[in-house]
């Protein structure tokens, strides 16, 4: 439970920042400080539980997603205790420091909130006892780091640095996820306790190497190991408290934390050794070298951090038990001195207004107190005796000598370590000497610089004191902590080691001395050379490289996207048809025999003739497509042939529908054609046409083959039921109509909805549409002056009542004979539209202009309510009722609720058709016709 509290404290604080920030911004920092302090106290109180029972860890768990193996389980053992201590301790100091660092008008709320959230995420990561949970927190730290680096979001460098950090560490997080999933797959669990117990099984598993690589990728990116180190220097665009906290003490340590955490399962293989130690070594040298050549104060510290992280990684890679202890020891030491150094750098930056090492010198005179603190910390970094850095460095040198992994080339590692030590010495001197001495008048924006506020120095002082105390009496200060942490890491009895300042004169001490001397010599003797090199590499900027890489990626992505999404419908359609045709054809190729067992029917001359004419007309449409009206006429002919075919193949209802739809479609297309160009320029090249032809023929073949194959096979349709039930169950003789209004009335309901929506959509589209009105026919001849020829006008009026009567007839008989609401509706619409054509809009709308849309909507309501009527009788929606009534003198009358449904269909279809066509026709208000008087 304590663990939850530990995790909750910063979270609560983060939530509080919003509240306090709104009400009492002045109290923000003091109140907030209390929470990490409480966490720290809580941790110190838990000390006994961790130190005294080394084999036993405090734990807590709650289910989150057991199906996935993802649990909210926490544990506190020595290793996590050490890191938790670092996170809360340094965090506390950083918050105190940031209180004075932030400018008054900056968003302190956002800053502290993010910082506290980061603290929570980091605590969560070190406390996680479930690998997936660890990955969750891992990625959270990346995200929060991104937000913190980009805190000064109006600065381009901050944005770029943040993005780079996120891309690298976030990408590493994804690798970690994959690695953890593999590890969990191997072990069958994501619980740390179970995973750590299965080292042998893991290392023998074939997936060990990919898993290792993935996890190490995460480690190296997070801990800024070579070659992934480039993001860290640019993360220095963050406010300095962030750099001190995230990029020296905690987040970058997450990588090495993971190495320590998974050490028992992963270590001991060649893969581990080569990957880890070689990367560490390369990073150590590279970081130290680059630190020497930095011009930016924080850049120097950043590369120094990289170098030290390399050192720690190398120690893990050396893979002796003692080296692991040394690594952990160095983690502690590095966190302490590097955090204090960053804070000192922040003070310098804050007070002078620059971080440029070329402009900073002689500050010791102006800020003596700060100078002392910084010098102590940097000496510790350099590994000078009396300070804590020396101790772990000694152990490091010792371990480089103790390993025997490279065989003949064993000497390479200690030699490289010594060289790195020398360089460390050199850049530490550069920091001390360059900033605080060497010149009297610093060339800084805020001149003369002075000491910062008192409390801004307190965190630095505290850390420097720790450096000293640990350096002097290590065993009493960090002995227990180190032991507990090492024990938890190794999960084996600790090797013998002694934490003493003086071990006598031995090889490591000699190496130390050599490196210190070499470093001093390098700095003092080769300063000019260093400066030249620095200028030479000044323009080499990882950020620019990264950004240009990103730009290249963007260009590539844009090119790919443009290529795929060319904006050409033809190409999209081509792809789509290819997929829709080729893939089914591929599977259809398995068909053994095209024809099935049912003999093809004998050739019916009339049907055959209709079909042949249809085919001819279809081809003619294609040939004539250039001349649009002609194509339309031919298409209309096709429609007629289709209806004849329907008629021939026993589908009179379809024929009726097709005939009526055809008329309305022609009206619609002719209306559209008025505005469209009369002719279609054919500009497609031969290749395109060939492609289209292939697709078209392929599609046609597929359709034909499928049709033929199915038609010659036997089947057992459910339709027998409909024929059987049509009269007794549906009350109608026309089975198709009964299907439409009864058996499958729901389809019809949907279908009229589609039509209504189309009507609404058309009306919506026509709103505000502007189209150029052609004033003369394309052949240059004028239009005729007679808008409404007398004969047409008069006869159309006469036709209307007759047509309406026919519509009523078709509507009423639909249930028993071909016809029905839909056809009737189209007849009505055509009759009314004819009035528009024959007599003009003004005439028609003055006499017959109901609200078509309301009729359409009302139709659906009518149909829907008819369907609902059956609910009242306890039957499902759309259950129909019908009865035969005998009325004296008139005879048998059949009434069916399906007829009301059909009436609804009628209303909707009529209303919609009229909405569509009449609105399209009416949209040009009184047209100015140039050809009027011609």
């Amino acid at each position, binding site marked *: 439970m304590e663990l939850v509290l530990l995790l909750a404290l910063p979270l609560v604080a983060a939530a509080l920042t919003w509240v306090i920030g709104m009400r009492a911004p002045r109290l923000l920092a003091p109140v907030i400080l209390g929470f990490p302090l409480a966490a720290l106290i809580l941790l110190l109180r838990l000390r006994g539980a961790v130190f005294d029972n080394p084999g036993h860890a405090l734990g807590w768990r709650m289910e989150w997603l057991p199906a996935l193996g993802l649990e909210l389980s926490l544990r506190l053992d020595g290793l996590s205790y050490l890191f938790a201590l670092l996170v809360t301790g340094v965090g506390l100091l950083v918050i105190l420091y940031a209180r004075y660092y932030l400018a008054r008008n900056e968003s302190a709320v956002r800053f502290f909130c993010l910082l506290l959230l980061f603290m929570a995420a980091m605590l969560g990561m070190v406390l996680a006892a479930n690998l997936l949970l660890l990955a969750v927190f891992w*990625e959270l730290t990346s995200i929060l780091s991104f937000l913190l680096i980009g805190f000064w979001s109006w600065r381009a460098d901050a944005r*770029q640095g943040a993005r780079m950090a996120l891309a690298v560490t976030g990408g590493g997080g994804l690798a970690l996820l994959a690695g953890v999933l593999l590890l969990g797959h191997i072990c069958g669990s994501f619980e740390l306790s179970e995973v750590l117990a299965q080292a042998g099984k893991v290392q023998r598993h074939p997936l060990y190497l990919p898993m290792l690589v993935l996890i190490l990728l995460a480690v190296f990116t997070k801990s800024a190991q070579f070659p992934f180190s480039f993001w860290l220097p640019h993360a220095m665009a963050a406010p300095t408290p962030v750099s001190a906290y995230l990029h020296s003490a905690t987040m970058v340590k997450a990588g090495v934390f993971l190495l320590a955490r998974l050490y028992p399962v992963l270590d001991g293989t060649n893969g581990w050794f080569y990957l880890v130690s070689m990367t560490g070594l390369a990073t150590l040298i590279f970081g130290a070298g680059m630190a020497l050549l930095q011009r930016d104060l924080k850049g120097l510290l950043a590369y120094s951090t990289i170098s030290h992280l390399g050192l720690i990684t190398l120690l893990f890679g050396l893979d002796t038990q003692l080296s692991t202890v040394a690594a952990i020891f160095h983690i502690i030491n590095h966190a302490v001195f590097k955090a204090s150094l960053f804070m000192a750098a922040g003070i310098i930056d804050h007070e002078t207004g620059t971080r440029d090492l070329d402009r900073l010198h002689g500050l010791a005179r102006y800020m003596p107190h700060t100078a002392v603190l910084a010098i102590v910390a940097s000496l510790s970094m350099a590994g000078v005796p009396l300070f804590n850095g020396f101790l772990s460095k000694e152990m490091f040198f010792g371990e480089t000598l103790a390993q025997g992994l490279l065989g003949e080339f064993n000497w390479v590692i200690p030699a490289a370590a010594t060289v790195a030590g020398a360089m460390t010495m050199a850049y530490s001197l550069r920091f001390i000497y360059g900033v605080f001495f060497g010149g009297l008048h610093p060339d800084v924006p805020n001149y003369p610089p002075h000491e910062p506020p008192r409390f801004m120095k307190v965190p630095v002082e505290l850390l420097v004191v720790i450096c000293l105390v640990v350096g002097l009496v290590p065993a009493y200060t960090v002995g227990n902590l180190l032991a507990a942490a090492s024990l938890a890491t190794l999960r084996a009895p600790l090797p013998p080691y002694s934490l003493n300042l003086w071990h006598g004169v031995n090889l490591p001490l000699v190496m130390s001395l050599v490196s210190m001397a070499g470093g001093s010599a390098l700095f003092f003797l080769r300063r000019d050379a260093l400066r030249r090199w620095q200028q030479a590499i000044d323009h080499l900027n990882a950020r620019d490289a990264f950004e240009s890489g990103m730009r290249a990626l963007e260009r590539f992505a844009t090119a790919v996207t443009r290529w795929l999404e060319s904006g050409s419908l033809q*190409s999209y359609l081509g792809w789509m048809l290819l997929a829709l045709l080729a893939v*089914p054809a591929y599977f259809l190729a398995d068909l053994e025999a095209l024809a099935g067992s049912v003999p093809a029917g004998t050739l019916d001359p009339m049907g055959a003739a209709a079909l042949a004419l249809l085919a001819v007309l279809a081809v003619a449409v294609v040939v004539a497509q250039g001349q649009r009206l002609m194509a339309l006429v031919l298409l209309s002919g096709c429609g007629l042939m289709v209806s004849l075919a329907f008629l021939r193949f026993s589908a009179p209802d379809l024929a009726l529908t097709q005939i009526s739809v055809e008329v309305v479609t022609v009206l619609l297309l002719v209306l559209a054609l008025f505005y469209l160009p009369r002719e279609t320029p054919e500009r497609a090249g031969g290749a395109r046409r060939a492609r289209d032809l292939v697709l078209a023929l392929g599609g046609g073949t597929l359709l034909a083959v499928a049709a033929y194959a199915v038609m010659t096979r036997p089947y057992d349709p459910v339709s027998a039921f409909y024929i059987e039930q049509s009269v007794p169950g549906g009350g109608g003789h026309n089975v198709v109509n009964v299907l439409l209004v009864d058996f499958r009335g729901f389809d019809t309901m949907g279908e009229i909805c589609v039509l209504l929506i189309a009507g609404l*959509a058309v*009306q919506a589209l026509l709103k505000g549409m502007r189209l150029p009105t052609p004033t003369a026919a394309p052949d240059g001849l004028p239009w005729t002056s007679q808008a409404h020829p007398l004969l047409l006008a008069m006869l159309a009026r006469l036709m209307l009542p007759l047509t309406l009567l026919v519509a009523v007839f078709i509507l009423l008989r639909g249930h028993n004979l071909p016809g029905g609401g839909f056809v009737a509706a189209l007849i009505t619409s055509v009759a009314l539209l004819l009035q528009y054509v024959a007599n003009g809009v003004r005439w028609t709308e003055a006499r017959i202009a109901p609200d078509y849309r309301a009729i359409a909507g009302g139709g659906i309501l009518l149909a829907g309510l008819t369907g609902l009527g059956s609910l009242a009788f306890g039957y499902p929606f759309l259950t129909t009722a019908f009865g035969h009534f005998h009325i004296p003198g008139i005879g048998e009358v059949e009434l069916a609720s399906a007829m009301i449904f059909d009436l609804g269909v009628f209303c909707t279809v009529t209303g919609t058709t009229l909405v569509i066509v009449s609105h399209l026709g009416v949209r040009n208000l009184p047209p100015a016709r140039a050809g009027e008087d011609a």
Partner: protein
Amino acid sequence: MNHAVLLPILVPMLAGALLTALPAQRLRAQRIVCAIATLLLVPLALVLLRQAATGDITVYALGNWPAPFGIVLQLDRTGAMMLALTAVLAVAALAAAGEATARQGRHFHALFQFQLMGLNGAFLTGDLFNLFVFFEILLIASYALLVHGAGRARIGAGLHYVILNLVASSFFLVAIGVLYGLSGTLNMAHLGLRLAGLPQQDLPLAVAAGTMLMLVFAVKAALFPLYFWLPRAYASATGPVAALFAIMTKVGIYAMLRCDALSFGGPQGLLGPFLHDWVFPLALVTLAIGAVGAVATRTLRAMTGYLVVASVGLLSACVAMQTQAGWAGAMYYLLSTTLCTAGLFLLADALEPEQPREDGALVTATRFAGLLYLVGVVAAVGLPPLSGFLGKVMILRATPAPWIPALWPAVLVSGLLLLIAVSRTGTRLLWRLPHEAERVPEHVPAGDEYLDEDHPALARARVRPDRRKLACCALLLAGNVALTVCARPVSDYVAEAAAQMLDRAAYLRVVLPGQRE
């Protein structure tokens, strides 16, 4: 008789019809009717969700004709889940669409209701042709909503969208035709039964038809190479419409799952080779294209469109797995990605107004908008700790061993690309100006060196984003967070839903009580 199953279709339909019949100028009345009908869907969905959670499949025989003769609605866990998702999306989208949105064009509310009708119908129907009808309803409503308010980009995208989908619909009918011609039935469960009894030599026809059907669904789902309509259509639609569209692609995925399980026999069925050999690679390509496309975009709107494409890729890969775990992962991820992409569309609408304001003012990001963006993209990219991550992990864990070398790298690399894309878009969108209360601090030189090309003039006036849209976005993202927090019940639910879906016998028992498999 329990009629509740019917209501998710009937309520929007009647509301839509009523809205059509109402005079168009009574906008306020229209809004009220529309809001009531939409809000009604939420409790309704909850009732149905509870009903389905028991594991019973509810069957509603329309017109009192038993299956396979009449059309039946069937409510199972998956369907209820999709209904609930639709209801939530609908509420948020409608709330975000203020009067201004409705005024941009005509009939917004009626079209909105019909769109819901189509969606709900597609989730409920158990009949193949009826599915086609509902697809058409939701498509035509979506065409209309897409071009709502017109504008060049919308019309251009709309035209492509319409024509591509019209062609797809034709092939939908062809596939239905072949299946009917072979089996003599249209009921999906009955179809499954009949196809299973088909003679061996006729099987290729059924497979080809099934393949075509799946590809038609893939057009709606926007699988490569059938996705071309999506990016521009989504990027050009108004925010609330785009938010509602977030579920459109999922209808395709849903239909693929449903038909494969119920009609084609699921894992041991007819479509295995197609799903494994074709859909899976195409899904990977889609995932890649979504990620690459997201990198190529410069606006949040467009990027979200590609996030949708990428999610479709992952979902289709799950569909192809044909395993209970894979489908469960797909359902969970589907919930997550729908909510967050819809939220992002609303956010984009708030932050990137379609037309520049007349006074030249820029919309600045508030802290709240920044938070919403963060939550949205974290969920959409699949970063921890939100549900997108959980969904991805579920999917990765469910991957069959032979597919791991293909799917895992694809997911991880696309995740990295998406991460890059969202960080770039986010910094470009939200970090170009200091926050409202801040000024550039004096002690930091605010010279040109810090300003890059994305940096608009600091001097321009600024306005805050539309609060209503942000609130709706927050609602959707809160849903996503809730998915994360309640991961356990939700994952249990989807696991059961997937298991139920794959258990064809259960459907046959209730849909066709007389028939035996």
